[in-house]
């Protein structure tokens, strides 16, 4: 039983995907787009967006991703991988061999953590926000996990593939993913051979990448699995085909018979009616709402997407400029993922992601999103599943740490060194200083409260919320600096800040 009111979608299926009328492109709409597509909506971004217009803003957000450079630690681990087998066989005894193996495993983990932290920093930057969030959306479709793959280079390569082909036709992306070493390992394609086809990948391809459950038969999976036999990759990640392990025989998938290849199977899957609505539905879940728009509406979008040869660029443009996306019922009521919460905080407070893993990766785990390690092949469920007493407590703790002065002398020596290195490339601010708070609040309490609310919250609050905040800034306990600090912290911990 729920008391939430369901405002029906008032747009017809056709109207839903028409471009938003220019008159409705206002600051509130711009903030909605910026928060949903990226991590936050800063006033200058909103100003620029209003000046550029809706479509140009979406194009700018999504259409030219910056490359994310391979990290030094991954390069090193890749180099050491070349001699790894030799070093293992050169080991003088069992203990020595175990030591070599252990050290290499540790090196891989350290390189992965370093990559995770560097990526967060990269993704937090406004110019990368929408692209990188899109990459995480695709990661939640094409799920792999470091815990299973255990090779940071392959994880990097997988993410980079999603970045590079993030605007390509979706079938092309699917074909590329079937050759991604991380995916091949995660879903066992690299061990699948003609004599014993492994159905894992074929099943997920239909169920989780292209069609969704119920839109294929068990026989389709069995036959399709035969087409993906013989797929292998080299140590450097290059794909190759082992013809004698590939089943080149006749197969029947979705009623079509022929000597199908893996790519052929993917093309067939995209001829199925379900293909045109599966990804758009996932997009709605990720970007729009827990309540998916009605099937007729999704059909309309799907038909247009299919006509556009499943171009992801087209889909993003159509989706983020549509009247439906800006509907009032979809504003300010999506529960932030831990990443959205964390990176949103970084942007909202003008802070930098610390250049070392401890204060980052542990909170992510506590908040229920073990970074790049989704719990299973389905990825993160999201929505209300993100929130329980433990995860909420972790979110509140994270906010508190960002307002606590850090005594850098007390940091571990490695962390101090990482900080020094990062500062060579520019200032690194780890917590909210008194000066920063004062800059945000140089006015009278009512104005400050309004500014905080408008700046931080995506959800309109009650007049009472506003007056409670104003009153506290005016006459709460402690001196003015303490009051400001407490006010912002409480606001960031309040229920409303978990929504976007």
């Amino acid at each position, binding site marked *: 039983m729920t008391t939430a009111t369901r405002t029906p979608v008032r747009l017809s299926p056709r109207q839903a995907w028409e471009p938003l009328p220019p008159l409705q492109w206002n600051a509130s709409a711009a903030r909605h787009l910026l928060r949903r597509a990226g991590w936050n909506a800063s006033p200058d971004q909103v100003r620029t967006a209003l000046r550029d217009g809706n479509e140009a803003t979406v194009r700018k957000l999504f259409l030219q991703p910056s490359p994310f450079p391979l990290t030094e630690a991954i390069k090193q681990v890749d180099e050491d991988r070349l001699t790894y087998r030799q070093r293992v066989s050169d080991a003088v005894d069992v203990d020595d061999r*175990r030591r070599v193996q252990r050290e290499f495993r*540790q090196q891989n983990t350290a390189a992965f953590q370093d990559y995770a932290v560097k990526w967060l920093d990269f993704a937090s930057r406004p110019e990368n926000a929408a692209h990188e969030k899109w990459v995480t959306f695709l990661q939640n479709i094409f799920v792999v996990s470091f815990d299973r793959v255990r090779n940071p280079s392959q994880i990097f390569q997988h993410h980079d593939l999603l970045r590079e082909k993030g605007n390509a036709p979706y079938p092309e992306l699917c074909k590329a993913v079937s050759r991604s070493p991380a995916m091949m390992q995660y879903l066992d394609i690299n061990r699948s051979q003609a004599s014993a086809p492994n159905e894992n990948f074929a099943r997920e391809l239909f169920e989780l990448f292209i069609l969704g459950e119920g839109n294929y038969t068990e026989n389709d999976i069995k036959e399709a699995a035969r087409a993906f036999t013989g797929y292998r990759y080299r140590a450097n990640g290059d794909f190759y085909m082992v013809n004698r392990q590939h089943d080149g025989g006749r197969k029947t998938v979705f009623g079509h018979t022929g000597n199908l290849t893996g790519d052929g199977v993917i093309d067939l899957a995209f001829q199925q009616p379900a293909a045109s609505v599966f990804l758009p539905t996932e997009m709605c879940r990720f970007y729009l709402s827990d309540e998916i728009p009605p099937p007729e509406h999704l059909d309309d979008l799907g038909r247009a997407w299919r006509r556009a040869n499943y171009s992801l660029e087209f889909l993003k443009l159509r989706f983020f400029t549509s009247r439906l996306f800006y509907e009032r019922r979809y504003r300010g009521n999506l*529960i932030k993922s831990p990443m959205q919460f964390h990176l949103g905080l970084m942007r909202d407070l003008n802070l930098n992601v610390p250049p070392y893993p401890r204060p980052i990766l542990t909170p992510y785990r506590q908040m229920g999103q073990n970074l790049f390690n989704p719990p299973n092949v389905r990825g993160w469920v999201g929505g209300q599943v993100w929130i329980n007493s433990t995860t909420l407590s972790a979110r509140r703790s994270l906010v508190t740490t960002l307002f606590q002065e850090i005594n850098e002398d*007390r940091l571990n020596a490695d962390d101090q060194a990482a900080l020094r290195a990062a500062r060579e490339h520019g200032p690194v601010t780890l917590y909210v200083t008194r000066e920063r708070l004062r800059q945000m609040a140089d006015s009278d309490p009512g104005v400050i409260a309004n500014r905080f609310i408008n700046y931080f919250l995506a959800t309109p609050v009650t007049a009472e919320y506003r007056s409670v905040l104003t009153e506290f800034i005016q006459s709460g306990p402690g001196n003015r600096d303490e009051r400001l600090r407490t006010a912002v912290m409480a606001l960031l911990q309040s*229920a409303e800040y978990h929504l976007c």
Partner: protein
Amino acid sequence: MKKIPFTRREFLRTGGRGLGMLAFCQYAPLFLTQSALAGAPKAEKDRTILVMVQLAGGNDGLNTLVPFQEPNYHAFRPNLALKEEDVLKVTDSVGLHQSCQPLHQLLGDGKLSIIQNVGYPNPNRSHFRSMEIWETGSDSDRYARTGWLGRFFDNACQGAPDGPVGIHVGNEVPQAFLSDKTHVIHGVGGGGRRQQQAAHDLLQQLTGAGHERGSNNGTFLQHTLMNALATDERVQTMMRRYPASVPYPRTNFAQNLSSISSLIAGGMETRVYFASLGGFDTHSNQATSHANLLRTLSEGLAAFQADLEKRNLDSQVLTMTFSEFGRRPIENDSAGTDHGTAAPLFVMGSQLKGGLYGGAPDFNIERNQDIAFSTDFRQVYGTVIERWLDCDAGPILGRKFDAVDFI
């Protein structure tokens, strides 16, 4: 200003905006559904409690429990080694750092056990990873997604969902608390109590005020937050109502222990508390900073123990320290020490056997080698789980570890 109602009766009386309807929705706060079970058993008052004290950064065990008779100790540390006359003797061959006077006293009284040279096979020297190993209780080549205390909660703490099973003082939720099932974990923030109270009151008011057009997600968040705030409220009230019974040092660490003592005195159903003291990564000019850290630790622990004794709670509480690793026997060129392996850990409480346990470090090593551990940290965990928390350690640690006989 209006407050959120925090009891069932108060709640039902409130016809206030938004709140009335919440009573009938699926996300009714736990305290409502809980109190519906009027006869639900109260938490027992005499359950055992564990307080974990994390020494973050890697405590130099060799200058904490000093093997002053060991020639190699002096040979490896020409500048940092402590001489016989500078330590508080425990036996003819080992003594505590001078800063540990209060702990030395507790040892004499039989309220302190020292487990020597604790570590694990194939040690990792990364802070992050080694702390993760200690907190998850995993082998060094395995990755566990839950903490050892989280697994204790999973195994032993069903049926008490309204109160926190674990409370950490300080802002970071310890990895040791990560569990598969959902439990109430509570954080008591650092910072002054006055501001904490102010922050709590403000958040409570904001949560009550809420947002326009209550969406399903918004209401759900509001309710989950209300539950957390109800716990906050209890915690704050207890800290006010049960102030320390003895003077504590003015350090943050001691104040945090004082908060824990107040909560225990207030009858919180929590079984595990977690506090942390940082700064042990002493790569350079170690002598002074390490002495200060050990003083902070010892004085804080001793005040905590004295407080518990005065309140007659000491028989209920066991306090244990741990650190991600010890430090290298050989000193470095910056008058400090680098990451090492095993180190001693302290266990404090009135119900202990007291004294020294576990094998001493073996110094028959090369100059830049590390000490091999003699007691696995999971032997200590296992002992605490079985003999103190009265729970089967098997499902928590994954396999059987020999007990250490300190309890």
